[in-house]
């Protein structure tokens, strides 16, 4: 009954109507297209070209990973998709609309969780930040409880984020992104600064959330295992300025399992293919 309209500008129709904690039906994600996308960023020597002629498209509900050597512009690409960086040429189209600001129905999860959680707000009030003023209070409370349950942190609602471990803080940030009922989730190395065990735990949580939510996810990482384990397709960025070096499908069934999936021969093949793609790109200067 609660069609949560946190801004809705998608041409593909209404936001996910959701019933209870199960989330919306799969297939309600947004389509994403990058068309001849180029991004220049300011640097000491004037403008530096980071991305050049990046073209790809992501189907609604697809889980796509972006990998590349460090400094290859992965984060810049994600920021351009999220409307946080203006392209210098080309365009990003999300849900049929050209992106010029953070698009409706899109949640962004940043790498550095501690610098995007407000220390003077409790976990619950950090999560509600994007809903305040847009929904009536009781509804906000319900959504906060729902998304905190999804990330397993309902008991920590009244705790301050800096009292939590890194993994838990990142869960808070994910919950906040989920509170917007995103049809597209943009994640920038969300598990990059977590230890290996916590990282696997969060990867599996994300899998569950993905299968319940059915939204599109674009996931930046520098971890080849992570990208193969989580994604349907892997976009490899390479070059200076970077462009799409390869797009590798991951034909592994879901749900995936940390032990059995990773032992699978297909997994190993895809992993090798991604590894090769990253290193066979054009010669790069600089790191």
């Amino acid at each position, binding site marked *: 009954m609660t069609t949560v309209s946190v801004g809705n500008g998608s041409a593909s129709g209404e936001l996910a109507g959701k019933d209870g904690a199960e989330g919306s039906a799969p297939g309600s994600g947004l389509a994403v297209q990058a068309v001849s996308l180029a991004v220049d960023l300011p640097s000491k020597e004037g403008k530096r070209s980071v991305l050049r002629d990046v073209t790809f498209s992501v189907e609604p509900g697809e889980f796509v990973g972006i990998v590349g050597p460090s400094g290859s512009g992965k984060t810049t690409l994600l920021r351009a998709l999220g409307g946080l960086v203006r392209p210098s040429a080309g365009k990003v189209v999300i849900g049929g609309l050209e992106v010029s600001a953070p698009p409706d129905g899109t949640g962004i999860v940043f790498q550095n969780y501690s610098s995007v959680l*407000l220390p003077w707000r409790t976990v619950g009030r950090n999560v509600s930040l994007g809903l305040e003023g847009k929904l009536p209070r009781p509804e906000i409370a319900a959504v906060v409880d729902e998304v905190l349950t999804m990330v397993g942190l309902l008991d920590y609602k009244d705790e301050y984020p800096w009292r939590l471990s890194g993994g838990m803080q990142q869960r808070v940030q994910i919950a906040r992104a989920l509170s917007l009922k995103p049809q597209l989730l943009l994640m920038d190395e969300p598990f990059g600064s977590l230890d290996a065990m916590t990282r696997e735990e969060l990867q599996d949580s994300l899998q569950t959330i993905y299968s319940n939510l059915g939204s599109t996810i674009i996931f930046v990482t520098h971890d080849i295992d992570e990208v193969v384990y989580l994604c349907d397709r892997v976009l490899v960025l390479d070059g200076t300025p970077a462009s799409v070096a390869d797009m590798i499908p991951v034909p592994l069934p879901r749900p995936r399992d940390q032990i059995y999936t990773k032992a699978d021969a297909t997994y190993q093949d895809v992993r090798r293919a991604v590894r090769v793609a990253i290193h066979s790109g054009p010669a790069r200067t600089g790191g």
Partner: protein
Amino acid sequence: MSRDERWSTLLARYPVAAGLVVTSLLVLLWQMSWSLGWARPQSSSPPSGIVAEIADLARNGALLQQGARTIGVTVASWTFAVSIGLCLGLLVGMSRTVRRFTFSSIEFMRCLPGITFVPIILLIVGFSVKGELILGTIGSIWPVLIFTIAGVRSVPHSYWEMARSLQMSRRDTLVKVVAPASAASAFVGMRISLGVSMLLVIIMEMVGTSAGLGGGLVFEKGAVNVEGMFAYLFVIGGSAVALNMALQAAGKHVPWLLRG
């Protein structure tokens, strides 16, 4: 536990008491110098005499009335200054255009010693509570303004991006993210402003209105009452410390000043 450890635990538990050790020793030395006749500087007075004088002034009600006046005017002008400084600081901090156009004026004003306004205020409004309020306000706007601007400008870039990604309105971003994130810096400015405000109000009392604690101090000087002058000096010092402590205590209840 060794003796050293016991001492450091004790000092850590009572930091104020520890800080008072040196002061108490100095006062004791001062008193002994008088009582034992080591030195009795002419324009001075022993602590016991000053305490008696304070008690005297307190008993006839003068001190309470003067203290209330000085603190009242100080707090009032500080409140004006803080209201103006915080609003202006947020505005200047958030808008590059406003910053560009106001930068040199603010730089000039904040460097100008507030006391130079005294003759101008005398000429325009005369010596009155109004004049004290105006000087106290003008002089103490700058610390809170400068520190608020600095606070806004040091709001992490990630907070702005987070607010944008959550599609927060400009107003919500200001009220829920930027203002709280700059609060710690602004609070430092507020504390400095409180001192400046008191300084200027007392100057006005001393050179102009002859009221309040500043007026009392100048009166005692006119009467060549050394003990009275010292009495006012310590009462003014005590009031300043009390105001500062009250503000700090209030700050402990502001969640925005909370840092993980």
